[in-house]
């Protein structure tokens, strides 16, 4: 006799096969019917992935993506002048920056590009809060986006010499008499070779190499190179050696940064971070070595590394093992619910309000307070406070209670693929639509618990589920372990 909780099978709602779903979940902010159809249309997971990687970067198209916050086009001096004259503060402009990131992640068809922009913003992390670097932060984000699927050596040179980074890690005011060590150190420890692959003497030399790159803080905010502030004389960082006799050290800086980008220790560090973000919290040394080799063989280009990564057995076996971080959780929830978010006209419109939801779950994008960037592994986010906060945000989204403006939520009638429908089939349809997979016995039982319904119950248009309990059912989908993981 079949179990009363045998799951329904609502085949009319398309799902992806296990491998394609895995790939699409890891390299997107959550499945949507559009993404499922794009993957199917491309001819499968790998074909979709390769097409995302092959797409030439289009800066103009990228800039116009959710270009809903005009202040993000202001230059540094203007942002600052407005703040000191009592206008909009830098932190408010930076809230817009985080909002634009969230909404781009929510809506962009170029999901792999968004995911990799996120990855590099975290690796070369400059917090988007803080008056000083904030004035340059949107421009910094553009640099990272431009190189997100490019070469690390080019990205590193542009990022490290960008005013936002120079300000954040104190290079902007460094002097040759006493070079400030902050950027020189984190460049080695965080951005390139990592702990254990450099010495304190390397840190000092690194800081000396970087002297001269200045920003006129609190006045014009202009970036300049100041040869009189550049420390000259022989420098050595690991096996990098230079006579450093030219007071204009810019070419030296670029040589140095390119050297670091091509260093085998950097290759392993980048490979390990990519594997941790996209494979599992504990990638094998073997896969790290393999990806590092690809990175070096392709002159620090990231696309060949990603192509290799998704073709490893370790990747294929790691389904559903990555916990979504707070921002990923919120964005995936909007996507799963099919929310249509439009340009905001007030603070309580979804495109603005989503920022508070990301905060509530644990963190907004680009807000990690330290230069090491937010954790790529799940453990720190697997906290009871996260569980409570995620449930709270999911609950308000499932009910369409907040935000209500600037967004269209699907009604229960829109969610139901047909009426009447057997409850188990409705749950299966929702599982396919929200989790991208067929329903399980456990999900069906949890759904039955939540709305006090039997699996075989006939759901009609005036059933209490449709009338006033549908949020409870959507709450089950959003608070299921499947939705917390990618």
């Amino acid at each position, binding site marked *: 006799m079949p179990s009363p909780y045998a799951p329904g099978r609502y085949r009319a709602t398309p799902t992806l096969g296990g491998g394609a779903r895995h790939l699409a979940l890891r390299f997107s902010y959550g499945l949507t019917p559009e993404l499922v159809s794009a993957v199917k249309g491309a001819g499968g997971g790998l074909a979709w992935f390769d097409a995302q990687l092959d797409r030439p970067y289009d800066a103009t198209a990228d800039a116009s993506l959710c270009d809903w916050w005009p202040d993000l086009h202001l230059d540094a001096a203007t942002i600052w002048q407005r703040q000191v004259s009592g206008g909009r503060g830098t932190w408010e402009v930076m809230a817009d920056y985080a909002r634009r990131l969230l909404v781009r992640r929510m809506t962009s068809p170029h999901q792999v590009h968004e995911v990799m922009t996120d990855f590099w913003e975290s690796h070369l992390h400059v917090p988007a809060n803080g008056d000083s670097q904030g004035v340059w932060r949107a421009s910094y984000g553009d640099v990272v986006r431009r190189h997100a699927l490019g070469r690390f050596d080019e990205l590193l040179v542009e990022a490290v010499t960008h005013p936002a980074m120079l300000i954040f890690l104190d290079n902007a005011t460094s002097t040759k008499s006493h070079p400030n060590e902050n950027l020189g150190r984190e460049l080695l420890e965080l951005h390139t070779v990592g702990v254990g692959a450099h010495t304190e003497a390397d840190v000092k030399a690194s800081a000396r190499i970087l002297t001269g790159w200045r920003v006129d803080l609190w006045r014009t905010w202009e970036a300049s190179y100041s040869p009189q502030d550049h420390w000259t004389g022989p420098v050595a960082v690991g096996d990098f050696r230079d006579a450093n006799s030219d007071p204009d050290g810019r070419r030296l800086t670029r040589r140095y940064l390119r050297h670091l980008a091509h260093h085998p220790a950097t290759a392993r560090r980048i490979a390990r971070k990519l594997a941790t973000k996209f494979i599992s919290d504990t990638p094998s040394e073997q896969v790290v070595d393999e990806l590092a080799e690809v990175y070096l063989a392709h002159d620090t280009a990231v696309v060949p590394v990603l192509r290799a990564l998704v073709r490893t057995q370790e990747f294929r076996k790691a389904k559903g093992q990555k916990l979504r971080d707070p921002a990923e959780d919120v964005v995936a929830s909007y996507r799963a619910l099919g929310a249509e978010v439009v340009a905001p006209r007030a603070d309580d419109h979804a495109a603005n309000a989503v920022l508070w939801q990301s905060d509530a779950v644990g963190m907004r994008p680009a807000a990690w307070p330290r230069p090491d960037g937010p954790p790529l592994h799940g453990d720190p986010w697997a906290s009871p406070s996260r569980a409570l906060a995620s*449930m709270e945000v999911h609950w308000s989204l499932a009910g369409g209670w907040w935000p209500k403006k600037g967004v269209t939520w699907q009604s229960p009638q829109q969610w139901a693929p047909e009426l009447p429908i057997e409850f188990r089939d409705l749950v299966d349809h929702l599982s396919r639509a929200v989790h991208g997979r067929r329903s399980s016995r456990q999900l069906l039982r949890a759904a039955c618990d939540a709305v006090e319904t039997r699996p075989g119950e006939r759901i009609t248009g005036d059933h209490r589920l449709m009338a006033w309990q549908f949020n409870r059912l959507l709450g089950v989908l959003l608070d299921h*372990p499947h939705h917390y993981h990618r």
Partner: protein
Amino acid sequence: MSTPELTAPTGSGASCGCAEYAAVSRRGLLRGMGAAALTWSVGSAVVSAAGPALAATTTSTATDGSVVVVLSLRGAADGLSLVVPHGDPAYYAARPRIAVPAEKLLVPDGFFGLHPSLAPLLPLWRAGRLAGVHGTGLPVVNRSHFAAMEAVEDAAPGSTERVGWLNRLLGELPGSSPLQGLAAGRAEVPTSLFGPEPVMGFRSLERTRIAGDDKWDPNGTRVRSLERMWKRSSDPMGRAFRSAMAAVDDLEPARAQADRSAAYPDDDLGRALASVARTLRGDVGVSLVTVDHGDWDMHTDLGTLGWGRMRREAESLASGIAAFFDDLGSVADRVTLVTVSEFGRRVAENANHGLDHGWGTVMLLAGAGVRGGYHGSWTPLGTSLDADVPVTTDYRSVLAEVVAARTPASPTVVFPGFQRERVGAMLGQ
């Protein structure tokens, strides 16, 4: 910048008698599923907590209700500015612009004195309940914030396990409630509390509810369905869900306490400490708390008594701690607070009115069982650009005294392979 409250109309389950069934059901089902420490966060401040036995009742503990609060000064705090060695001439020689003038120091003795911004701590000092131990840190210099923080918080060199010292300490305390270990301030679990013992955390006491478990769900269907989905999940998120569900009802006595955050500085640390005090006043079985306070990485603009980041940060720290002990009332007799920073800063100032990464720093202890005054042994400072504050006291010796004085746990289990040396900063030690 203010964060608007979310306004989902989920109602107030706690004030509603009809939520009782769900609560009872959850207690019955989830207790013993292995949930125990509490973490919550407010902006840049992070609080985490863990507690002693929390059985069917929420009082009596094997540790007589002792609470240890670990306040992490993130970013490597300059100990020389907080507890100034005015008797060491190298201090003034190496810091021509940012040294604190000796005549401005508070409660100076022949050698040390407190930064003037620590004035709010004077009542604790005069009561003999505030101590500073100078020259503390990791035994081997480590100038990486991230590697040093991890080493400090794991406190088990040579071990590859990711288990923090507070989680090991939790394992040594009787009881298994998630409320034993509490983290407040941010969403993440701090490294010190991370490990197999369950912990609890929340961002604010008001938010310690399960959304949907409210008066509109008199039959507890929401909680029942959540239990079904998460009870078998063996990954860390599964543990977190079970901790949260096991602990929310038990926090009711804490929520019932008055919110006195208005008496604290209006900053992240103040809000975090206010929520910790409220929870401790509620006597829900918390025994370990972590709070993060983080903007101490002062490469630039550490400044002087007239301006700069040290002045601001020290004042926030001191007023927060002072308000915390005032707020605790009689509970303060059971609470010991200790500060930890991943390392200190160099002796000599740099060209930006700041200080680069150094080694030794100061640890402050306040509250129950503390032997007030200046502690630690001093090695005269150098004045070169590279001069560090030498570490003369392993930070674990200080923490081990707190553990030995205030908990039933064995310091040798909490700090494996470590032989502590007497510091004398805790009474009876």
